Every structure is written in C-alpha cells, then in structure tokens.
C-alpha cells in the first residue's frame, strides 16, 4: 500500500464512476460487462493504492507495471484510466469506433495500457519478462498482472508460474479475478480449479485470498509485497460477475452484453441503488 492510499469510501466512489463508464460501454455494440464489473474494484484499488505509477510516470523505468491478461475486462481499465487522468475521458465515447483504439480488448496505443491482450494465457509470461528485466537492472519496479479464473485453464499459465517461481521473481504479483465463471459456465462445473491456494503454493508461489470487493480486505492482501521473499505473489480476489448490478449479478448468460439505450439508463439507476432494471436484450454468448 502506498502512503497516499485513499480512504475506502473514496475508492468505492471512484469504483462507482468506473462502473458507470462500463455500463455506458455496454450498448451500441456492447462489451464484456460481467467480467469488467467483477474486477472494477480490484483495478481501482491497484491504481489508487498499490501501483507506484502516475500519468506522468509512464516513461520512468523504475515505475510499476499493470497488465490485463484477461483482456476482455478492459472497460474497467478504460474507466479507471479516464478517471485518474491517464486517458482523456472524452475518448470513452469512441468505444468501438474505427477512429480510435478503444475496443473490446486492450491496445497499447491507449495511454496507460501496457500491452495488448485478448488471447488468454499470454500476459503472465510477458509480465515475467518485464519482472526479469527489472531485477536485472536492480529496479524497485514491480509487475502486477490481472488474470481471469477461467484463464487458468490455459496450460501456459501454469508453465509461466513454473518459470516465474524457478527464477524467483518475487517482484511479480498475479491477481486472480475469481468471479467463478468461465465465459459461459461456472468454473467449478466445467474445469474445477479449487483448491486454488494449494495449486499456487505447489507451483512455488505465495498465495493470499481476499474479498475482491472489500477495500479494507484488499489493503490487507497487498500490505506487504512480496508475501514471501523469492516467490511470486498470487492474490486470489473472490469477486462477483456483474458486481454492482443485482439484476445481472452472477449470471452465466450476462458475460457479453449489448443493451438498448433505455436499458443502459435503467442500469445506471440500478448502480445507484434504485430499482432493479429489467433488461430484455438478447443474451450474447461469445467464444
């Protein structure tokens, strides 16, 4: 945690604004709403309270890095970058327009986006490469990589963990957005992942588990890094798909959403505690 970590209530207020951005992106083509809402608190927490990073520090070789390996959650990052001054908020209106680089997966042309992703299982090893160079240069910088729990099906994730732990990359922090869903089904119904902490420990990492929507719990999880000297840290953040919108929370069929403008209006009200929205737009299952 940095010395300037904002109060939990301030982070919650910021996360609410980020969720508004996400919901606004779920129309006119839509976005991966459910996965974006599950990691919104995590991303806000990282950018406000953990990362040694600021809009003016992107060229600093000793800064921290944050990469999205499950790239389809990028609306949460776009919203955070816009709120924190990395990205002109007006550009969010360019979502899916060919005149900008703001689309369903990250593109590093967007200020603050470190690397593109979209194919699962890639950025753990990219992050390990950054971490290896940081260590070679004796940089204080660290690398945080947000991965999906469904993404843990990919063999390259476990291969990357083997190598990261063999190379003792304790400046690498893997954050699992444990929203319990793959694209279309619950993880435990398809390829069960639990007990996850045991798996990460067996792969040479130091795991910690917390509520990924509770800023006080996140403060505790990230309080001391690395958790164990010589080991990559893994933060398993238990989250809820669609968090913030009770009408669609934890539903297998609300991963990618393309709502009408009226539905978006109702969902924005629901975000602020008003009545549950009734959304009837056809469910889209991608992948």
């Amino acid at each position, binding site marked *: 945690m940095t010395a300037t970590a904002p109060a939990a209530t301030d982070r919650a207020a910021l996360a609410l604004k980020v969720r508004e951005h996400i919901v606004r992106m779920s129309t006119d083509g839509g976005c991966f709403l459910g996965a974006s809402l599950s990691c919104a608190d995590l991303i806000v927490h990282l950018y406000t309270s953990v990362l040694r990073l600021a809009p003016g520090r992107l060229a600093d*070789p000793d800064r921290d890095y944050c990469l999205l390996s499950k790239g389809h959650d990028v609306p949460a990052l776009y919203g955070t970058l816009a709120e924190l001054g990395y990205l002109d908020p007006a550009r969010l209106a360019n979502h899916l327009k060919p005149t900008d680089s703001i689309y369903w997966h990250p593109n*590093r042309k967007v200020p603050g986006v*470190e*690397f*593109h992703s*979209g*194919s699962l*299982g*890639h*950025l*753990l*090893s*990219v*992050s*390990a*490469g*950054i*971490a*290896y*160079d*940081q260590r*070679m*240069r004796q940089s204080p910088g660290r690398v945080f990589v947000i991965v999906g729990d469904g993404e843990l099906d990919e*063999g*390259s994730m476990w*291969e*990357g963990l*083997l*190598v990261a732990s*063999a*190379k003792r990359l304790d400046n690498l922090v893997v954050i699992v957005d444990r929203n319990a869903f793959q694209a279309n089904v619950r993880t435990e119904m398809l390829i069960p992942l639990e007990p996850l902490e045991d798996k990460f420990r067996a792969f040479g990492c130091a795991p910690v588990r917390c509520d990924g929507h509770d800023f006080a719990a996140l403060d505790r999880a990230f309080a001391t890094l690395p958790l164990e000297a010589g080991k990559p840290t893994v933060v398993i953040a238990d989250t809820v798909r669609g968090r913030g919108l009770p009408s669609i929370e934890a539903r297998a069929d609300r991963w990618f959403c393309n709502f009408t403008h009226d539905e978006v209006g109702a969902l924005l009200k629901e975000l602020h505690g008003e009545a549950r929205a009734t959304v009837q737009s056809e469910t889209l299952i991608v992948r």
Partner: protein
Amino acid sequence: MSTATPAAQAYPTYADALHALVEADERVLVVTAENRGNIRKLPPILGDRFLDVGICEQTMIGMGAGLALRGRVPVMHALATFLVFRPYEFIRDDLGIPCLPGKLVGAVPGVLSDANGPTHQALEDVALMRGIPNMHVFCPADGEDLALGLPHVVGSPNPTYIRHNERPAPVRHAPFELGRAEVVLEGEDIGILVYGALFTEALEAARLLAAQGRSVRLVNMRMLKPVDADAIEATVRRCGLVVTIEDAFKVGGLHTILAETCLARGVLPRRTLAIAFDERWFTPALLPAVLEVEGLTAPRLAERIAAALA
C-alpha cells in the same frame, strides 16, 4: 558476386558471433527453452544475460516480449519445430502485433533434423513465419552466411526468424545487406534460387551443369522476408529455366514467393522447376542419406534440372 574459393572457416562460429553481439550491446540477451547445442559455451560467460526457461516455449516467447518492452533484444533458441509450431500464437500476438525485436533462432530446420522424424522436421516454418506481419525471415546458406547476417538481423527493429545453419561454407560470401540476395554465379540458361542448408548442394549442382556447358545463375536468397524481388525478377527475365530449391514444403515457401513476385512484377518465367517437399515429410536418416534418398545431392539436383531443360 562472390568469389568461389573455400572460406576455410575464416569466420566465427554462431556462438562466437552471438557472444560478440552480447558484448557490444547491453540490450542483447541470450534466451533458450533448454536448447543449448549451438550456444553451449555461453551460459557460464553471460551470467543473468543468459536465461534458460526450461522446456517452456510459450513462456520463452512471452518473456521475450516482456524483455523487449523493457528495451532488450532477446535472441531466443529452440529446435525450429518447437520454436515455431508450439508457441506460434505467442509469436504472432506478442512479437508480431506489437512489432517487438524478438529474435527466434530455430535449430536443425529442414533437412538438418536428420533422423529425428517428422515431429522434428520444420518444413512449414518459412511459410508460417513469413505470414506474420512485421516478421523478417533469415535463412543463411552456411556458417559464414549466418555470421555475416547475424549482426544485421539482430540489429533490426523487427521480430526475426532465423533458420540456424552452420554447415561449412563452400564459398567466401559477399557482405550482407538486409533484404538483399547474393548472386553467387551469373548465367542465362538456368537460374537457381536457393536458401538455407541446400545451398552447398545447389552450388555444386550448378558447377556440374556448367561443366556440361550450361550457363547457370545461382542466387543465395539469404532472406525470404523482406525478399529481394529485384533479384528474383532479374533471374526470371534473364534465365530460360527458373529453379527453386528449398528444404521446405512447397506451399508458402520460395516457390510460392517466385509465383507471387512474378504476378506482382508482371513477368512470366519461360519454364520453372520446384524442388521442395510436396505434401509429405522426408525420409528420416542421417543427412547424407536424406539427401541421397530425397534426390537432393548435387549430382541428383543436376540431373533433375537437366531433365527439366530437355
């Protein structure tokens, strides 16, 4: 044009050439997925600038991309098959899309896999790698060609696939220029376009044909991307028969490049002969036997070319 005198090993080994680049440029790192055959002497010399990730090709490419994001030039090693095919999507996504200068050195490509069998035969590597936007492809004719080209391809800002080949050089090669072929022999009856390990046999076949009174132009392509289209067009315009020789599948390789270049330049060869593997893997054996059984020795190449002229 090159001088046709033996080079007598007057050039550094691959390991020495690479070591010199690492010494000269702090950005260059040597990375391997537990493939050390061609760089055996480097681990104790390089310290943390040598990184062995174990048998984890996908992780090697991903880490290479991460290193490149930090300003490094990772030179990555594995057998050509494992380097290209297993992590192909990582190469495409993490080096190709961002155009990062990761360098991929594939060991025992093509016929150099000897008796390993089809799992180890990189015959579609050229087609796959040249299909990735931004990717360069360097296929040296022998050890000297490799040593000459290495500083240029490692120094380029593009991701690059290198078909490792340290067969003894049968000629002293001309200086290397990125994207330029080397005209080794000049002639008009036959134009031979060749790259990689079969250069030695192609050169000897050209000499045999010359001894039979044929005038032969021999072009060592060196790079298949960016390709020297001028050298190809000149061969097509000048020579009665254009022959492509490659230890690769016919699809997507040099013969395909010839066809693409002819269409793009609006030229038509009078006759062509494609010497490549067509829809099959080659018979596994030690290299001399592979060349014999697959009709790739110099005398057999000369026979096949003479037959195409008849």
